[in-house]
């Protein structure tokens, strides 16, 4: 059985999750602080990919990065970068598509932390950055894990956007979800089942990991 679609999916999901971790944690923190109308706009933009059908997102990305016009033409002519029908394009699309899956749970976790623990850290002379990494982050590690899993899984299952801008190219944009769709359409049900099973197994492994981690960090070992 051809395993490249699975590898491609895993690579895509991993890279996307890493990018979103680096990007999402600070943004989520910033959004969780005092609200303003400017933040509202940013938050709305971050939320967009959630409500936008993947087909729409794919459509706009297609228009934006099509070598026929605007940014795509420019990238193409001056840098020879192609963001449609390429793996790089899928990464960009996935980052946009999965953005709210990272940001939304983290924002909520930050907002629920008691303000007093950050204050305690400030009184100990710690800067905002130190407090952020030493106090806030460790105390929402559970949520960070959950958000990462959500992001990873969501990217693994990405379909509509890839269908639109991926072009189903083996070893480049033919990820597992598309391979399954393809197999089903070609009535190759054994391949479809095989790919589905592998994805199933991966989810299971993820869930078990999270479960064990959470058990370890359980609330009150005393009761």
């Amino acid at each position: 059985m051809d395993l490249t679609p699975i590898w491609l999916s895993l690579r895509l999901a991993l890279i996307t999750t890493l990018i979103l971790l680096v990007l999402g944690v600070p943004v989520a923190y910033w959004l969780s602080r005092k609200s303003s109308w400017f933040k509202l706009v940013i938050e709305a933009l971050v939320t967009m990919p959630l409500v936008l059908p993947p087909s729409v997102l794919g459509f706009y990305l297609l228009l934006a990065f099509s070598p026929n016009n605007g940014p795509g033409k420019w990238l193409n002519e001056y840098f020879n970068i192609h963001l449609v029908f390429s793996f790089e394009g899928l990464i960009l699309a996935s980052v946009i598509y999965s953005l709210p899956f990272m940001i939304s749970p983290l924002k909520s976790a930050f907002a629920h932390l008691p303000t007093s623990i950050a204050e305690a850290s400030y009184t100990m002379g710690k800067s905002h950055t130190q407090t952020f990494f030493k106090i806030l982050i460790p105390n929402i590690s559970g949520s960070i894990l959950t958000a990462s899993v959500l992001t990873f899984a969501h990217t693994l299952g990405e379909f509509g956007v890839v269908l639109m801008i991926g072009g189903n190219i083996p070893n480049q944009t033919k990820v597992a979800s598309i391979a399954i769709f393809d197999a089903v359409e070609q009535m190759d049900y054994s391949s479809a089942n095989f790919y589905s099973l592998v994805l199933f197994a991966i989810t299971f492994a993820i869930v078990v990991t999270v479960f064990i981690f959470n058990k370890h960090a359980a609330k009150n070992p005393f009761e």
Partner: protein
Amino acid sequence: MIHVHITKEIKRFKGTEKFLVQTDFSVGAVTHISGPSGAGKTTLLRIIAGLVKPEHGHITFEGETWLNTTENLYLPTQARKVGFVFQDYALFPNMTVKEHLSFGTKDVELIQRLLILGKMERFIDQRPRELSGGQQQRLSILRALTTRPRLLLMDEPFSALDQALKAELVPDLKLLLIEMKTTCLVSTHYPLELKGFADFYFEL
């Protein structure tokens, strides 16, 4: 000299109340801040630490301006070099007793000394949720001392400690403050427990 002159508005059932403080505190000494429940002790300590901003006023510490609302000056909490013992402890849920202390200092000798001072040696690997009320409170005092603060603000810091423990802890703490040249403001409803600890008294 710590000079404080501030006004803060407090929301009330109907309308707002004005909370006004104007006073000086001696440096290098311990001042007992007293006042009925709800008088504003916590609020005052938080304002001095820079955790709450008053609407009007100024605060200076030995000539250094910490707050001046007319000139829009405001020294951030970190730069004030204070220690704070919170009324509700505000411990870090993710850290063990030992980690709380190492977060404030690299000085292992100081840490060891503080653990002994607070009789907390046996609990170094426990997290806040695994500590009794009094153990949590002691940890919160020790943590505030790790940074060798210029000014130690303690909000009802002994309320969960038993008499015998307090009788040992308070004098030791006093010696440590003198050694560190730390000024101290402490709010409590139990003036007795500050006998020999507080040098001055301020009623809100």
